[in-house]
């Protein structure tokens, strides 16, 4: 608490960071990757590893270029991203309302919490066999896996988020005439958002891995399927290229969706420490 009745020091942090600093950050972000590629190139070169075991950097780049040229890359990428999006949207619209309902009722949350924690461990990949039995091989099974992988983590974190809202905050809203479902929109949802964002990050991670695993088994398009196909053809260049794409897409998702969401909400509101 400041002694003088004046704005706290954090005022200047609201604005997005200035350009030059973001540039430096991007460089520092890239350095470990550049180093990794350098080591990769060196090790393959020095040990004389053949492409049958592990591709040289140039092989992977060539494989990537070929995938792009043939249209395979666009096809697989499109299939994966579409499934991921549908699964994620389904998870958000089901898990957040469910989590808010559980979080606002101590009895319901006490009843469901052990079940949720149990399910978080099982979510996603372990459901692939049952998903293919129920939904067959194809988009629906993969989407189910993405949804399932995200659902429990997102629900669990939403429950935690609602429970962390100080009772006085809810009371303040009620004493200003906020009634019934409006409490959800005005207080519970924004109040739980720091934890919801955490749940989203964890859930998207599970969902992305679930997607790749499900595509390896349950379909004939997508990045996971590209991995599977390349393995059966001993094409290590395509395998590594696909893995790189999977990783890069995750980073893009994190940087372009989650980070801006966090900056615009919980960071701006000074709520980040809560989660």
């Amino acid at each position, binding site marked *: *608490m*400041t*002694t*003088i*009745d*004046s*704005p*706290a020091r*954090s*005022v200047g942090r*609201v604005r997005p960071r200035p350009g030059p600093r973001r540039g430096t950050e991007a460089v520092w972000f890239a350095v470990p990757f550049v180093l990794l590629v350098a080591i990769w190139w060196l090790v393959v070169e020095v040990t004389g590893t053949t492409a049958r075991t592990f591709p040289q950097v140039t092989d992977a780049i060539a494989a990537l270029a070929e995938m792009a040229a043939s249209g395979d890359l666009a096809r697989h990428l499109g299939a994966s991203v579409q499934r991921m999006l549908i699964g994620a949207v389904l998870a958000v619209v089901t898990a957040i309302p469910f989590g808010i309902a559980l979080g606002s009722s101590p009895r319901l949350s006490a009843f469901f919490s052990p079940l949720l924690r149990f399910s978080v461990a099982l979510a996603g990949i372990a459901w692939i066999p049952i998903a293919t039995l129920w939904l067959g091989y194809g988009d629906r099974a993969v989407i189910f896996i993405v949804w399932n992988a995200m659902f429990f983590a997102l629900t669990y974190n939403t429950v935690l988020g609602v429970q962390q809202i*100080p009772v*006085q*905050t809810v*009371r*303040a*809203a*009620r*004493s*200003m*005439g*906020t009634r019934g479902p*409006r409490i959800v929109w*005005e*207080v519970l949802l*924004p*109040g739980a*958002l720091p934890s919801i964002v955490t749940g989203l990050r964890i859930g998207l991670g599970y969902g992305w891995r679930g997607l790749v695993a499900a595509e390896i088994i349950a379909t004939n398009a997508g990045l996971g399927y590209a991995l599977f196909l390349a393995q059966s053809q001993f094409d290590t260049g395509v395998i590594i290229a696909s893995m790189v794409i999977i990783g890069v897409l995750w980073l893009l998702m994190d940087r372009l969706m989650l980070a801006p969401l966090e900056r615009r*909400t919980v960071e*701006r*509101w*000074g*709520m980040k420490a809560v989660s």
Partner: protein
Amino acid sequence: MNTLEINGLRKEYVDHYTGETIPAIGEVTFSIGEGEFVSVLGPSGCGKTTVLNIVAGFIDHTAGDVLVHGRSVHGPGPDRGVVFQSHALFPWKTVLGNVTFGLRMKGVPRAQRDVAAADILELVGLSGFERKYPHELSGGMQQRLGLARVLVNEPEVMLMDEPFASIDAQTRRKLQQDLTEIFEKRRPTVFFVTHDIDEAVFLSDRVVVLSHRPSTVAEIIDIELPRPRIWRETVEDPRFREYTHHIEERLGGGEPDAQAG
């Protein structure tokens, strides 16, 4: 008719471990008139905040009545505005968003809300901070915002729960002075809970002194200090010391609480 009437209020808890019934509020009766500033003072843990929470409608009581303009109170409502010790601002809303929250709930159109907000923010000294978020304000400013958020709704009675207790001494003096000026200008009806004797005497028209648990009203004292009150002048008034000494004695031993005075 009194704005707020508390008649024979009692509250008992059931201890979850022993199953015993524990009386928290023995019997509390007092009333607050229109435009009156009444402080409820008592030792820590005497149940004064419990009385406020019952009046606010946050918790229910065992026996007795709470009436606002003759209507019995059930649950929280916009007729009773609450200023919390922890300020309980909405961190996801700007200063303006916090101040206009209650009016928005009432369905007041935006243009009207903004005019009312500008007026109140000016009154509490927060003009120019409309676009800031609560975490960007100092503790004192946060509590001014907590006050503005309630004042703007013009509730029938304002309930203030030790609003300055967690604010440093220097800022607290300033806030007490400002609250007095705001009160003298607008004359809201105020139910103010505190354990600070000087604060209670300086701010109030009447002070309700509660006993230890289970709390009962030990005494109600009319504070006949002239208004407008200015901290420096008012504390030098011999009657100010008479009141505070009297209350200290009443509370037993002159040390009702570490933070008194």
